[in-house]
């Protein structure tokens, strides 16, 4: 465009504010689009509308109190946030977590991944106009919420993990219900695929939309399914195993072209892999305590560490610095995957149409609670 001959007509770009109140910006994201007709020339992503200062808050809370603050970040996958935080503190304190707790944590995290992907698939499909898929997905997510409700009594913000282990053992018969859920989810996956995977309109709307190559994706800091969609087989669960992932078998699906359709396929396959992990974990669920040897007062020695886990959105990292004297972290930092992935939006949407912008926001799968913290 820059060195193209000047067009015969003077055209002006139209600046349009998409959000913060917009049906498909998944919360309070604001994207300032500069449009040439319907084509996006440039965009600026404005965030911070949901900024609650969770990092600052956490520096004035006990280590145990922070668990429930982490719930409020990625609120569609709260248990994953709990897991990442607890493991980071455990790493800082050198705590050993019992195997049974590790397994249950893994199950919870994978259920959460499925729930998060359900929300993602539903909203993503709805942004592209397939409203039915949304309701189907919410139906299955409801089952997961029921499972969580039975496990810890909460449906959205679970506060479901503790430093050093778990607050609760699984209730009797819960594992059977989880297995039943896995069966249902597997069946319903076929429904989603029938509605979307080979649908011509879906293919046209997602293929070659927002293509990003593997090296570009790494450079811009994409992680999780968007990165794997670009063909980079990076999964923290495999590369830096945590919880019980090193004892369980699963594949890391990768895409080929790095477009929206590949990201869709990768996440669909992750549904299946998550189900596979849950089944293995249930089969191999060891007996034993659910809490390790945790001091009454959680006060890690002075030092810093960074620990990352694979959240449904990507690499969820926690950086905690302890001064060794206080029961609150001196510095509490979250590396929010949504935040880092959202950064790529500008690069992805350039040259695409307005309709693709919503498809791409959906394809990145952002949760604004996590972006803004």
């Amino acid at each position, binding site marked *: 465009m820059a060195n*193209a001959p000047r067009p*015969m007509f*003077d055209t*002006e770009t139209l600046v349009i504010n998409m959000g913060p109140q917009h049906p498909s910006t998944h919360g309070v994201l604001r994207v300032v689009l500069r449009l040439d007709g319907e084509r996006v020339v440039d965009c600026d992503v404005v965030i911070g509308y949901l900024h609650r200062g969770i990092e600052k808050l956490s520096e004035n809370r006990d280590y145990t109190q922070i668990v429930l603050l982490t719930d409020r970040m990625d609120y569609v996958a709260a248990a994953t946030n709990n897991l990442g935080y607890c493991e980071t503190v455990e790493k800082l304190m050198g705590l050993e977590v019992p195997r049974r707790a590790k397994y249950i944590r893994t199950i919870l995290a994978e259920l959460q991944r499925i729930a998060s992907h359900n929300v993602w698939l539903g909203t993503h499909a709805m942004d592209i106009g397939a409203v039915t898929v949304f309701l189907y997905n919410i139906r299955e997510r409801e089952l997961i919420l029921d499972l969580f409700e039975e496990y810890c009594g909460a449906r959205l913000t679970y506060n479901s993990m503790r430093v050093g282990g778990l607050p609760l053992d699984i209730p009797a018969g819960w594992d059977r219900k989880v297995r039943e859920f896995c069966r249902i989810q597997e069946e319903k996956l076929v429904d989603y695929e029938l509605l979307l995977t080979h649908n011509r309109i879906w293919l046209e709307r997602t293929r070659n939309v927002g293509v990003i190559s593997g090296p570009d994706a790494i450079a811009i800091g994409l992680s999780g399914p968007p990165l794997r969609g670009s063909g980079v087989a990076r999964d923290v669960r495999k590369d830096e195993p945590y919880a019980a992932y090193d004892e369980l078998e699963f594949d890391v699906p990768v895409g080929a072209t790095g477009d929206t359709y590949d990201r869709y396929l990768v996440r669909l396959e992750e549904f299946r892999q998550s189900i596979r992990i849950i089944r293995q974990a249930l089969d191999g669920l060891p007996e034993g305590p659910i809490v390790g040897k945790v001091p009454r007062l959680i006060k890690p020695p002075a030092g810093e560490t960074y620990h990352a886990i694979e959240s449904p959105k990507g690499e969820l990292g926690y950086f905690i610095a302890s001064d060794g004297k206080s029961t609150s972290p001196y510095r509490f930092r979250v590396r929010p995957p949504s935040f880092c992935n959202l950064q790529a939006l500008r690069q992805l949407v350039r040259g695409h149409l307005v309709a693709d912008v919503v498809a791409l926001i959906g394809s990145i799968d952002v949760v604004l609670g996590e972006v803004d913290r």
Partner: protein
Amino acid sequence: MVEAFAFYSLAAFILGFAVLVITARNTVHSVLFLVANFLFVAALYVVLHAEFLAVIQVLVYAGGIVVLYLFVVMLVNLKRPPEAHADPRRRGRLGLAVAGLLLAQLVAVLGYSATQAVPAAAAAATAPAGGNVEAVGWLLYTDYLVPFEVASMLLLVAMIGAIILAKREL
């Protein structure tokens, strides 16, 4: 009597809207008056028992071409003063010349039609029997074949020209 009344009242509306088209300050309003104008012209055709023409008038002019006018008018930034035609005297002279030409043409047409009898075929076109679709089609492809083809050629040229103008890179 009734027909004469209908004709003159419609004609008054047509003229009124035509005046509004050129006097309206807002270009979009101007285009809207043009649509109303075309609709009344269509009504006039109905009064003349030329339903086909009336419907085509609505379909092509009111429903098609003016929509494109509106499209363009909405997209063009109208707040900017026109630069190319800033010289008012030049505009005035050009306008006078065009008006004079138009007047001469109208006088010529009137004079010609006053001296000539209405062709039989044209009379058939307005006759209601058998639907005037066939009659119009018949006339177009026999007596007026050459003008018809020339007109379509002209439109084709215009279309290609428009595409070339609008396309940024060929």
